[in-house]
C-alpha cells in the first residue's frame, strides 16, 4: 500500500530546501486533492493562507472522522502516524504557521498518547473532541477548538482568511496530510490511489487502497458479500444508489447519480435488508447529530425521523411520502451548513431509486390494519 510507505523526515528536509513557495507549487503540480470529502486542491488552499498578510497563522489537522462507515483516518493514524506528523510539519512550514492543532475524534482518544510521543517538541497541540459529528465541519472545528459551542460559522469569511481566533487557517484531512510527504518525496507517487472504507453486508470489511476509476463491483467482490448486494451507501451524507456492474468509482460517475463520492466510504446493503429501515436508522443519526442552529436541520431532521418511524413501524399513508420528499428537499436547499444540506441525500436518493419499498411498506401496514 502506498499509504504505508515511510519518508523518515526526508520529505520535510526536501520541502525546507525548496522553500515555502516552491513547496506549495510542488503540491499544486502533483494535484493533491483534499481527501476529507470536498476534494479541494490542497496546494491552492495553502496558497490562499500563505498569501494572507496576517503574521499569525494556524494549521488544523482534521482527525474528527465522524462519518458513519468511514475509518480510513483511523487506519492511517494507527498504521503510519509518522507520515501524518511529517505532513503537518511540512504544511506548517509551507503556509508559515507557528502552531498546529490535531482535532482528534473523541472515540479515537486512545491514539492521543502515541501521537504525543511522535510530536515530541513540535508545536502541535492535540485537541480531543467531545463526540459531536458537526465538529468535523471546518468552521465548527474552529469554534470547538476555541472552546465554544460546536456550531458552524457563517461563510464568508472563509477559514483561509479568518479562521481560528480570527487568523488565517488551513484545515486539512488526515489522509491529505499523510499524502503530502509522499507526494513531495516519491517521484512515482500516484495521486489517484484512494483509501476506501468498505463495510455493511460484506464478510471482509476494511480499508482497501484502489485507484480512482475502479469498478464498484470489483471493490464489492473484494469484500466477499454473502448475499446479492442491492444498494450502496456512500456514507450517510453521500446518498445511495442501486448496485450495478457499470458504476466506476470516480466523482463524476457517482455524482451523475446524485451521490457524493466524498471520503471513499462504501456501505453495502444486501437484499435481505429493507431500505426503509436503513433510512430510518440514518435519520436517527442526523436527528441526534444536528447542532440545532438552523430551523430546517433542527426541526426538519426530527420530523423526518418521525415520519420514517411512522412508515416503518406504525401507520402512514402515501401523503406522508410526499411530505417526506418535500421536507427532505427543503432541508437540502436551505440548511445552514454541510451537515444539514447533506442530511437528506440518503433519503432523496432512496426515494428516487427505491421508492417502491417505501410504498410497499405503507401498503403492508395498511393491509395489516385491515385484518385486525
Amino acid at each position, binding site marked *: 500500500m502506498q499509504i504505508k510507505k515511510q519518508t523518515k523526515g526526508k520529505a520535510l528536509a526536501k520541502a525546507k530546501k525548496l522553500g515555502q513557495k516552491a513547496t506549495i507549487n510542488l503540491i499544486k503540480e502533483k494535484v493533491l486533492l483534499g481527501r476529507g470529502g470536498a476534494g479541494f486542491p490542497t496546494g491552492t488552499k495553502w496558497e490562499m493562507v500563505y498569501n494572507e498578510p496576517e503574521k499569525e497563522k494556524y494549521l488544523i489537522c482534521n482527525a474528527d472522522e465522524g462519518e458513519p462507515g468511514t475509518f480510513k483516518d483511523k487506519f492511517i493514524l494507527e498504521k503510519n502516524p509518522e507520515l501524518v506528523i511529517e505532513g503537518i510539519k511540512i504544511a506548517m512550514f509551507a503556509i508559515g504557521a507557528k502552531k498546529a492543532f490535531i482535532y482528534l475524534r473523541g472515540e479515537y482518544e486512545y491514539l492521543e498518547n502515541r501521537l504525543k510521543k511522535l510530536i515530541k517538541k513540535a508545536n502541535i497541540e492535540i485537541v480531543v473532541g467531545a463526540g459531536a459529528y458537526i465538529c468535523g465541519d471546518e468552521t465548527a472545528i474552529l469554534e470547538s477548538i476555541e472552546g465554544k*459551542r460546536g456550531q458552524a460559522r457563517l461563510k464568508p469569511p472563509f477559514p483561509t482568511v479568518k479562521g481560528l481566533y480570527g487568523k488565517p487557517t488551513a484545515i486539512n484531512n488526515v489522509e491529505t496530510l499523510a499524502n503530502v510527504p509522499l507526494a513531495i518525496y516519491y517521484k512515482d507517487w500516484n495521486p489517484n490511489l484512494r483509501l476506501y472504507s468498505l463495510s455493511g453486508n460484506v464478510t471482509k470489511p476494511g480499508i482497501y487502497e484502489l485507484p480512482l476509476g475502479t469498478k464498484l463491483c470489483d471493490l464489492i467482490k473484494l469484500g466477499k458479500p454473502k448475499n446479492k448486494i442491492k444498494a450502496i451507501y456512500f456514507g450517510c451524507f453521500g446518498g445511495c444508489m442501486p448496485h450495478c456492474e457499470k458504476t466506476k468509482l470516480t466523482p463524476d460517475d457517482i455524482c451523475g447519480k446524485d451521490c457524493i463520492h466524498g471520503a471513499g466510504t462504501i456501505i453495502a446493503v444486501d437484499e435481505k435488508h429493507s431500505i426503509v429501515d436503513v433510512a430510518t436508522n440514518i435519520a436517527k443519526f442526523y436527528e441526534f447529530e444536528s447542532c*440545532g*442552529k438552523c430551523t430546517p436541520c433542527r426541526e*426538519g431532521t426530527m420530523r423526518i425521523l418521525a415520519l420514517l418511524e411512522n412508515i416503518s413501524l406504525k401507520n402512514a399513508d402515501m401523503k406522508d411520502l410526499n411530505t417526506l420528499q418535500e421536507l427532505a428537499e*427543503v432541508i437540502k436547499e436551505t440548511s445552514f451548513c454541510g451537515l444539514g444540506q447533506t442530511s437528506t441525500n440518503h433519503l432523496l436518493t432512496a426515494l428516487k431509486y427505491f421508492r417502491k419499498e417505501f410504498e410497499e411498506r405503507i401498503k403492508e401496514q395498511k393491509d395489516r390494519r385491515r385484518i385486525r
Partner: protein
Amino acid sequence: MRIRVDNKNIEVDSNKSLLLNLKDNGINIPHLCYQEGLEPEARCRICLVEINNKLVTSCNTYPKEGMEIKTKTKRVNRARKINAELLMPEHMDKCFRLNKHHDLCNIIGDLGLKEVRFNPTRKYTADLGASVIRDNNLCINCGRCVQVCAQVQATWAIDFAGRAHHEHVTPYFEHDLNDVACIKCGQCIAACPVGAIDEREHLQEVLAALKDKTKHVVVQTAPSIRASLGEEFDMPPGTLVTGKMIAALRRCGFNKVFDTNLGADMTIMEEGTEFLTRAKNNGPFPMITTCCPGWIKFMEHFYHDLIDSNNMSTCKSPHEMLGILIKTYYAKKAKISKKDIVVVSVMPCTAKKFESTRPEMKSDVDYVLTTREAAKLINHFNIDFKNLKDEEFDPALGISTGAGAVFGATGGVMEAALRTAYEVGTGKQLTKIEFDQLRGMDGIKTGTIIIKGKEIKFAVANGLANARELMKRKDDYHFIEIMACPGGCIGGGGQPLPFAWEKIHKRMAAIYKEDARLPLRKSHENPIVQKIYKEFLDKPLSKKAHKLLHTHYYKRGL
C-alpha cells in the same frame, strides 16, 4: 451599484445586506432571526431568495455587481413556507389569530401557511421570574434574545444549551432567571419575535385593587409613557398622548393620576445637590446616576466596587421617590392612612418590577405596569382611547417641568441635572438650556461645563455594553449617567412591540417636544417641588429627605 431583482433593475448600497437593500426598495422579505442593529446569524432560514438557481439567506448576503435575484419563485415560496411550518407547531392556537406584536404571526399570512402537518413536541417548564418570564415551549431558537443580552447589554444571562431539537435558550446550568445575573432590563422581551419571553404581569393585582372600595389607588406615569402609549392604539410612533393617557387612566378607576416627572424633578433636586456637595468636597468622583434599575442591578453584579468607593449616588429612582412621597406627604395632606393607599407605576420597564420588590423599597410602590400592560388595562375597560378628550394630572402631585420630561431619553437625566446644578451652583441663568451634545442616539456621549470656575466633565451611556466601555475610563469624568436600554427609557423592555430603531427615534423627538412645550423647564423652578421642601422635607439632602428619598445597594455575586 445596480442589481436585478425580479427582472427589474434597482440601485443598491453594497455595504448593506440584501435584506436591508430590498427593504429600502419597498420589497419586504419575511424574516425572524434578524434584528436591526445586530449581526445577522442566519438561523431561521426564512429570508430566502434565489440567486443563480440557489437559495440563499438575504440577511447575510451582500449585493454584487450584476447579481440576479428572484424573490417570488415557487421554490422560494415553498422553502419559506416549510421552514415557517416547522416552527409553527407550538404556536398553532396562538398565531393563526393575528397578533400584530409578533413577527411570526405577521409573516405566516404573507407566506400563505394555512395548515401545519406536525404536532407540538416541546415539553419545557416555564421560568416564572420576578419580572421576566420565559416559556421555552414557544421559543423558535432564533437567538435574538441571546444576541441582545450579549451584544447590547453585555450581561450574558442567557445562552443556548443542548443539541439538535433539544437546543434551547437557558440561563447557565439551567437555573431560573431569578437565580442568575440577569438585570431584568427586558430587552430580550423586545427582541423576541414570538412572545416566548414576556413580563410578569401585575395586571390582576391592579384590577383587584381597583375593585377594592377601601383602597385609594393612585397611579403615576413615567416620562416616556406619554411618547409611546399611543402606538398600542394604532397611533403613529412619536405621538404625544399625555392628556388622553390621563383621561384613560381616570376612566380605569384610579383615584388620582400623578406624574412621575415630578419624582424626576425631586431626583434632580437631590442628585443635583448631592453633586454640588461633592464638587465642594472635591469628590468622590465620578458620581454615577441611579435612576435606572437595570443599571443598578448590573452594577450590583458586575461593578459593585462602585458601592464601596461611594461613586454611586444614593438617590432612589424617580417613581420610588414619588411613591414614598405619595405614601407620606400626600397621605398626610389628603388625610388618608398610608396602608389604604395603593401606588401603581406605569413604567416602560420590567426592571422596575424587580425594583419594587426590593426589601429596602418594598412599601413605596405596590405594583408596576409596563406600557403594554397599561394598554391592556385600558382595553380591559373598553375605553375608546383615540377619541378621549385631553385631561390634566391631579394637581396635588401633578405639576412637572421639562427637566422631568427629558428623563425618558438617554442623556436626559444629565441634561436636567446640569440645568439645576449650574443655576443653583452659580446663581446665574443658563443662556441656552438645551445641551445638544447630550442628545441623540450615540452609545456614549461626553461634554464639559464650567460651574464656579471648575471644569466639570460629564459622560452619558445607553446600552450596558456601552456602559462597560465607559466604566473603563470612568475616572476621566465627574458625573456619569447610565441607562440600560438603547436610547434610554424610550427603548425600554416594557415598551410597545415590536422593537424598531425608527420608533425609538420618533419617541425621542416627542420627548424633546414635550420639554420645549412646557412653561417650566428646570426642576428647581417647580412650584410643587418647592412646596414639598418647604412644608415637608426642609431642604435637599436634609435628614428627612435622606431617610425617605435615598437608598443603599447590595453586592451580588454572579
